[in-house]
C-alpha cells in the first residue's frame, strides 16, 4: 500500500513537471510567434540581460531592470516601432539563451569582439567604452604594464578579463576573477588584488557612489576602444535589421547623445 501511494506521488510529481515544461515551451513559442509580427499588435521582443552592471543595467529597489543600456534599447524600440520585455538571465546563461531562441536579442554592455562575432551577430555599435584601472589611493601603478607581476581582479569572462589574460598569461593564478564586478572591486578593496580592471562606466559609477573608499582610477591609452553592440543569434537578420534601423534613427535624432552624453559614429 505504501509503495502504491509512493508510486502515485512520484507519477503525479513527474506529470506536474512535464506539464510545467510544456506550458513553458508553448509560452516561448507564442512569444516567437508574435515576434514575427503575424498579428496587428506591435511586435514584442524578449530582451535578455545581466542586470548586475550598474550603471549600464541593474535592478532598482522595485526589482525593475534599469540603466543606460536599458534606456537606449527602449529608445531604439520606440524609434523602430516594436515593444520590448526585459528578462534577467545573468552573464553566462545569456549566450545559450540567445542560441536557443529563448530571447530575441541581448543587451548587457556586450563589447563587439572577433571571438564573439564567430558565434553571434552584432548590431551597429551604440556605445564606446574603455577599460579603466582602479587601484588603492597609495598605489604606484601608473599604467596597465605596471600590473604585469601584480594580482589583478576582473569580472570573469568580460573584456577586462581578456586584456588581463593577455598581460598576465591566460592561465595565470594572479588573475582574481569572481562572478560580478562588485565582487571584483571588493577583492581589490580587501587587499586580495592590487588592482581591479573593468569598463570605465562601471568603475566611475563605483567611485562616485563610494566617495569614502580610498581608491583612484588610472587611465591607459593603450587600451583599445570598445564598442558595445546588441547581440542576436547568428544569422537572425530580421531582428538585426530592426535593431540597426532603430539605432540609426536615435543617432540621427540626437536621442542617443541625450542618454549617453556622447556621439557614436
Amino acid at each position, binding site marked *: 500500500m505504501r509503495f502504491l501511494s509512493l508510486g502515485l506521488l512520484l507519477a503525479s510529481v513527474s506529470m506536474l513537471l512535464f506539464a510545467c515544461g510544456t506550458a513553458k515551451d508553448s509560452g516561448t513559442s507564442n512569444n516567437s510567434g508574435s515576434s514575427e509580427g503575424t498579428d496587428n499588435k506591435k511586435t514584442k521582443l524578449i530582451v535578455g540581460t545581466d542586470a548586475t552592471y550598474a550603471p549600464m543595467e541593474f535592478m532598482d529597489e522595485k526589482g525593475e531592470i534599469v540603466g543606460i543600456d536599458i534606456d537606449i534599447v527602449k529608445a531604439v524600440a520606440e524609434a523602430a516601432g516594436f515593444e520590448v520585455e526585459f528578462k534577467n538571465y545573468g552573464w553566462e546563461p545569456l549566450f545559450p539563451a540567445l542560441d536557443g531562441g529563448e530571447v530575441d536579442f541581448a543587451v548587457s554592455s556586450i563589447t563587439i569582439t572577433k*571571438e564573439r562575432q564567430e*558565434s553571434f551577430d552584432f548590431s551597429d555599435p551604440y556605445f564606446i567604452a574603455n577599460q579603466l584601472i582602479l587601484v588603492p589611493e597609495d598605489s604606484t601603478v601608473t599604467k596597465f604594464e605596471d600590473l604585469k607581476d601584480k594580482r589583478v581582479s576582473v569580472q*570573469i*569572462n568580460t573584456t577586462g578579463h581578456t586584456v588581463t589574460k593577455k598581460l598576465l598569461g*591566460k592561465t595565470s593564478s594572479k588573475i582574481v576573477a569572481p*562572478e560580478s564586478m562588485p565582487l571584483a572591486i571588493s*577583492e581589490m578593496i580587501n587587499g586580495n588584488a592590487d588592482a581591479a580592471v573593468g569598463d570605465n562606466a562601471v568603475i566611475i559609477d563605483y567611485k562616485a557612489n563610494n566617495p569614502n573608499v580610498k581608491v583612484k582610477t588610472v587611465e591607459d591609452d593603450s587600451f583599445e576602444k570598445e564598442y558595445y553592440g546588441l547581440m542576436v543569434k547568428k544569422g537572425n537578420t530580421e531582428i538585426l535589421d530592426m535593431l540597426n534601423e532603430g539605432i540609426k534613427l536615435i543617432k540621427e535624432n540626437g536621442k542617443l547623445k541625450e542618454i549617453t552624453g556622447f556621439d557614436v559614429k
Partner: protein
Amino acid sequence: MDFLDIRLDMIWDYRELFIRGMGVTLALTAAGYLGGFVLGLFVGMGKLSKKKWIYYPSKYYVDFFRGTPLLVQILLIHSALIPGIFGHSLGYFVSGTLALVLNSAAYNAEIIRAGIQSIEKGQMEAARSLGMTQNIAMKNIILPQAFRRMVPPLGNELIALLKDSSLVTIIAANDLLYAGKVVAGASFRFWEPYLTVAILYLCLTYVFGKIISYVENRFSNSYVPTQRKKMFSTRS
C-alpha cells in the same frame, strides 16, 4: 545543438588550468574535511554534554551552519568576516577552507552524535561497573563501536564536501569549476568545458568512493555478502 562537433583541443590548451583546478579542489576538500572532522568531533560531543554551557553553543552552532546555505557562508566569510578581523582578505584558500571546515563540522557533529547515541546504554554501564572512568569508557568502549557506524555517513559527507567545494568558484578560487568557467567564457562553448569538469569531478568522487568502501570494509565485522567479502579479501 552541436553534440558531434566536440573540440577537445580547446580543453587541451587549458590543461594547466584544469590540473591546477583539480589540485585546488582536492586541497580544499582535504583541508575542509580534516578540519571539519576534528571540529565536528568536539561539537558532536558538545551536543551530548549534560552541561548547558557546552550543550547550547554546540546546538546553536549546528543550527546555524546546517541551516544556512554554504554559498552564503562563503560570501560572508570571504567578503565580511575575514576582512573585518584582519583588515584585508587572506585569499580564497583561507576563506574557502574556513567555510568548508565550519560547514562540514556541523554535519559531522550530527553524524558523530548519532553514532555515539546509537550504542546501547548497557555498554557504558558495563564499562563503568568494571571501574573505568567516563572518559576512558568513552575512548575505549563506546567510540570504537560508534566509529564503525559513523563510517558510511562520514564517507557520504566526504563526497558531498568534494562537490560542494565547487561553490568557492564564486569568490574566484582557482578550483576545478573555475577552470571550466574560464574556458567557457573564452570560447563561448559550453559542452566541452562543463562536460570535462563533470567527468573530472566524477573521477575524483569515484576514487574517493573506492577509498570509502575500503575503509568501510576494514572497520566492518557485520554481515557482508560472502561474494563481496571475497572480492575485498583478495584485494587487501
